[in-house]
């Protein structure tokens, strides 16, 4: 009987020692290089401007837009419901507190997407997995939402539906009434659409 008690006591001792040792290693709060490389190859961190526009319009409460540009540029123009964390302030306590909150999905926005990518990588190293990047940044926003390119007639239905959605978004974000454009597309008469020279940034493609 004594032997059993002894072995049980030994078991508890070893288990206790093990519990002490293991968390010491587990305390690593950072991801490793190999893991980050895998994350880089995975493209799931990107969200399109269309997706962001839709979520803003639907007032998705889970979305948080973080603008990484300098304060001056942010004040000149920013997306609705975006907050400003200039890239140079990214590592401050307040900023990291906001970014570490994983109850919301944080989408990083910058001029293009280089700053966003850099910020994403640094935050990912700190094990923040709820951070995304708006692909193309505000440059792409201007090219797809503010001035959606008119797709040629030959494009598939999906592309034209997307264009319609973008027209709606354009109306939402600029206040411009897009009725005029819609009439041109739905009208059965043969109307030669007057191509506004600025609109066709992506000419010919779908």
């Amino acid at each position, binding site marked *: 009987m004594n032997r059993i008690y002894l072995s049980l006591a030994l078991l508890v001792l070893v288990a206790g020692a093990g519990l002490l040792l293991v968390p010491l290693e587990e305390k690593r709060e950072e991801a490793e290089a190999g893991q980050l490389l895998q994350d880089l190859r995975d493209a799931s961190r990107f969200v399109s401007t269309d997706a962001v526009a839709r979520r803003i319009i639907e007032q998705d409460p889970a979305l948080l837009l973080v603008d990484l540009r300098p304060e001056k540029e942010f004040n000149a123009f920013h997306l609705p419901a975006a907050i400003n964390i200039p890239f140079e302030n990214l590592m401050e306590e307040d900023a990291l507190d906001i970014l570490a909150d994983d109850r919301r999905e944080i989408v990083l926005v910058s001029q293009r997407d280089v700053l966003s990518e850099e910020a994403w990588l640094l935050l990912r190293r700190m094990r923040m997995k709820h951070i995304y990047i708006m692909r193309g940044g*505000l440059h792409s926003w201007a090219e797809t939402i503010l001035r959606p390119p008119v797709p040629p007639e030959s494009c598939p239905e999906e592309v034209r539906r997307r264009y319609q959605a973008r027209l709606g978004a354009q109306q939402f974000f600029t206040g*411009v009434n897009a009725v005029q454009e819609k009439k041109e597309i739905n009208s059965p008469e043969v109307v030669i659409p007057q191509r506004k020279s600025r609109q066709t940034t992506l000419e010919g493609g779908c």
Partner: protein
Amino acid sequence: MIMKKTFVQKYLLYLPFLMAALILLEWLSLKAPEYPWKRGVKEVHSALLQAGETFSPEQAKFYFQEEGTKYQFVDVRDIYAFNLGHIPGAVHIPLHRLLDDASYESLRSMEEAGLLIVLYGEDEREAAGPYLLLKQLGFENVRMLGGGYACLAALLEPEAVGDSYKCAYAGVEEIDFPQIIKEIREEAGQENLAPVEAMETQQPEVVLPKRRTKQTTLEGGC
């Protein structure tokens, strides 16, 4: 009277040793990472804020055309893009092989030879990840190509891309959004709308998560 020992009773003695072995195994499996970080996050972030980490296409063009150059261009795109066209003298290390032994060794030897490693992808963003990884792993002489290969190719062969192509990259161009919105409204004949600021919805209230202080011992009690 000696009772016949049950299975458990027979082998109970061995249990602590088994547990110790398991815990030792788990502890051993948490080995050190193959490529440990040499620079902290904040350190690298500060380094990024300094100018000179990104080469403009003009600078790159000048460097690789120079004789006896001390720059080594590294192409991080896939093999097909590389074969279609790359910077003369560039070495091909695609992203997924960046931390392979062979690639890592060659990068190390480039740095030891005193070369400045310039990473480039199709666009500027493609090289940002590899660049940051190398920076954090301790590489000193690493830079990025602004605008990526697309911009540089356009610079070298302007006839191929045409006049309308504008190579713009982060840090160079500035988009005047209020101007764009104004133009859009003018085109639609609706200039007299409320200014842009009034259109925007309220900024969300950012709730800073309160750090929970450790609960003190139970108060009250029976």
